[in-house]
């Protein structure tokens, strides 16, 4: 009898701890990570997935402040203004048990500089990374780089030995469709380890009990089940039925429905992300239009007219149901270099747009293809459809091709689209990041997401000089002058800044991150 009660007591104890520990975060959003390779595809949802399992030296909290992660502290070197010294966290282990050391940092930086890496623009100014000892790293740049730490918040650290042993030292050729060991397997230092992954179907992660911060962070989620659900109604139905308890891409039309439902809440915050259209102005002739021998988009008047045809207020009111802020520049308000004046420069003026089209010699309009993702941004396809109608009013016949992001993004990076939708978040909170990817002429290691064909040598030089400009006032003046040129050239057609909505069960405790990067180690579960 006594024995039985002991067993019962033990069982009760075990079950109570099991209840505390077994908290599954059933997490859904519209799309999946494109790849798990840490240095391929500098893309939000891909980073989100990696952030659970891999870690960079530094991350940002929801206010944008730096949080030491794999580095405990960092400072410019006293001896050399071109060098930053990072002290690494001690006692950190990778998921396979290997120690995290300076050697892994050096290796990861080298890997991220490879041609196939999508992170190379962020660290283009770095000339050398040296291991001083096991837990100290020196990073040397081609000039003093005051904002270098900002560029490292999505630069994940891999284990050198694991990567070499599994033949996955080279970053995958994503556009070429390459699959490598690192695209589907993970060995990071992060708070969660990968259990299984079926791309576009389901990814399962479990808590890493050996995590260095196991006692510093809540880490109340013991298991993460991540399911991409492209269809908005299905996604909301899953949240309402309890099939998922954390929904990242809340459809704007269902906010009231979810917020009013028992046990569910919607949390909101402005997002550090701007949505815009890019136009190929660099080509002599466009493939996807009906004008031969000429490129209508090369004429700045046509680009201005297109921007003037877009009714951003209507998109905000109807398509976004108020969950956006019309944009006049392709920088979110979080970013150094953003000004309210420039962000207010977009206006809707159909008559003026038609006059500009006629002036440019396209009074009868032309036809063009618009490439658009359908599972990446909030109501991306609906925005593109609305743009089709709006551009139709100034005579531009737009053929819409809305496809999943996994096929859409390579079109931009491969230069296979003349008119496309793109959204850009700015993890560095500085305009240089935008210029490096979207404004600098396209070269092998810079301007890789600039699908406009715009390439201005003076501007390129100015952009490059930003990295080593230590006089912040002069640097800001340069940033302003670059923006002026981007605005005057109507390099892009800004649409709006997104507002983030996360839907979740009341038991899930987390605040919305302006970069749309939930980090599950911060989650509490009631």
């Amino acid at each position: 009898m006594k024995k039985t009660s002991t067993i019962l007591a033990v069982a009760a104890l075990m079950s109570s701890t099991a209840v505390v520990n077994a908290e599954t975060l059933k997490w859904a959003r519209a799309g999946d990570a494109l790849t798990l390779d840490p240095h391929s595809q500098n893309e939000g949802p891909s980073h989100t997935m990696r952030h659970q399992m891999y870690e960079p030296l530094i991350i940002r909290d929801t206010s944008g402040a730096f949080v030491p992660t794999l580095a405990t502290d960092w400072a410019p070197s006293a001896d050399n203004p071109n060098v930053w010294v990072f002290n690494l966290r001690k006692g950190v282990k990778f998921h396979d048990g290997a120690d995290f050391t300076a050697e892994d940092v050096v290796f990861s930086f080298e890997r991220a500089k490879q041609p196939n890496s999508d992170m190379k623009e962020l660290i283009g100014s770095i000339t050398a990374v040296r291991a001083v000892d096991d837990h100290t790293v020196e990073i040397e740049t081609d000039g003093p780089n005051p904002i270098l730490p900002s560029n490292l918040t999505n630069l994940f650290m891999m284990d050198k030995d694991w990567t070499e042993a599994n033949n996955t030292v080279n970053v995958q050729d994503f556009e070429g469709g390459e699959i490598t060991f690192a695209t589907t397997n993970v060995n990071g230092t992060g708070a969660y380890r990968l259990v299984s992954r079926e791309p576009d179907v389901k990814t399962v992660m479990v808590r890493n009990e050996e995590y260095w911060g196991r006692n510093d962070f809540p880490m109340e989620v013991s298991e993460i089940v991540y399911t991409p659900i492209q269809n908005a109604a299905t996604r909301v139905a899953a949240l309402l039925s309890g099939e998922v308890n954390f929904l990242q891409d809340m459809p704007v039309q269902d906010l009231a429905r979810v917020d009013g439902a028992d046990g569910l809440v919607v949390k909101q915050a402005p997002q550090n992300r701007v949505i815009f259209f890019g136009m190929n102005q660099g080509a002599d002739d466009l493939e996807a239009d009906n004008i031969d021998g000429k490129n209508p988009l090369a004429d700045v008047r046509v680009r201005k007219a297109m921007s003037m045809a877009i009714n951003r207020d209507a998109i905000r009111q109807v398509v976004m149901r108020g969950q956006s802020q019309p944009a006049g520049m392709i920088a979110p308000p979080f970013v150094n270099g953003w000004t309210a004046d420039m962000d207010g420069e977009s206006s809707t003026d159909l008559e003026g747009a038609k006059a500009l089209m006629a002036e440019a010699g396209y009074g009868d309009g032309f036809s063009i293809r618009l490439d658009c993702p359908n599972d990446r941004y909030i109501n991306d396809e609906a925005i593109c459809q609305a743009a089709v109608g709006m551009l139709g009013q100034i005579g531009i016949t737009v053929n819409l091709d809305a496809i999943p992001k996994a096929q859409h993004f390579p079109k931009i990076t491969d230069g296979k689209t003349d008119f496309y939708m793109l959204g850009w978040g700015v993890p560095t909170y500085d305009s240089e990041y935008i210029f490096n990817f979207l404004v600098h002429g396209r070269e092998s290691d810079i301007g890789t997401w600039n699908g406009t064909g715009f390439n201005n040598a003076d501007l390129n030089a100015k952009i490059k000089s930003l990295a080593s400009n230590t006089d912040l006032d002069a640097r800001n003046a340069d940033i302003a002058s670059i923006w002026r040129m981007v605005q005057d050239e109507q390099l892009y057609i800004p649409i709006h800044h997104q507002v983030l909505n996360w839907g979740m069960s009341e038991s899930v405790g987390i605040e919305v991150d302006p970069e749309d990067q939930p980090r599950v180690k911060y989650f509490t579960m009631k």
Partner: protein
Amino acid sequence: MTDQPISAPKEPQSVTPSRLRRALDSDFYYAFRHSPVAMVSAAVSILLILSAVFAPLIATTNPFDPTTLNLMNGFTPPMTPNAFTGETFLMGTDDQGRDVFSTILYGMRISLFVGFAAVLFAVVLGIFLGLLAGYFGGWTDSVIMRAADVQLTFPSILVAMLIFGIAKGITPVEHRDQMAIWVLILAIGLSDWVQFARVVRGATLVEKNKDYVSAARLIGRRPSAIMIRHILPNILSPVLVIATISLALAIIAEATLSFLGVGAPPTQPSLGTLIRIGQGYLFSGEWWILFFPACTLLALALSVNMLGDWLRDVLNPRLK
């Protein structure tokens, strides 16, 4: 399979074709007059088909013309003035500010056109291959009917999706929207020919041993003439029955493909596309975007199907 013995070469057929036809006609009218179901389905079908044909005259807006759209009209409930523009719409508007009533009329045109064209395509292909298989027998028959058997093992919607996918892959993106309708017709037609081919083959096997065919052969008519001029007219009635029922199925197949997002493009919505657009707004209470197109599709498919059923009963009493 190739040389089926025909057990009853002389079927009871006491009337000549012309009198038979006349008799059928009067039976037909008699049966029609005494079947309320048939009359109601015929009325609904004709009403829907006519409103689709005359859509440009009935519809208040042309939903395919982007220049007439005003996004601010989006999500207007039926019979309620829009908060921004003050405009009122009979069945409300969808997410892009399109009048749902006009969009249904135009969408029905696409649905019906695809349905009719796909069935026509399937009938022509099915009759052609069925006649060949039935008349020549031998390896011709084996090849055609084995192909048919293989295709029958897949659900037809799967075959249609496969064909649609391949066709979409080989058409340039610029022409995809214009091509989408034709590709739909091809996909649904190709997935549907088997039943026509089987029926025609069976009937041809029966007919080809009859005296009138032997007579035609004796006077030296070419096989193609015998098949088309002599056999075909005598096997058409079951084909017509299947065609009517197929029409309803083709309309639903088109709606299914478009609902899955592989059919008619959002800029040229068919009923299925409209339902796909509408189902995203069910939770948020904008029921009319889904409700009215779904009701129209239901009415259309049901009335055509009921008509087909009735037609089968009348033309082929043995199937009752």
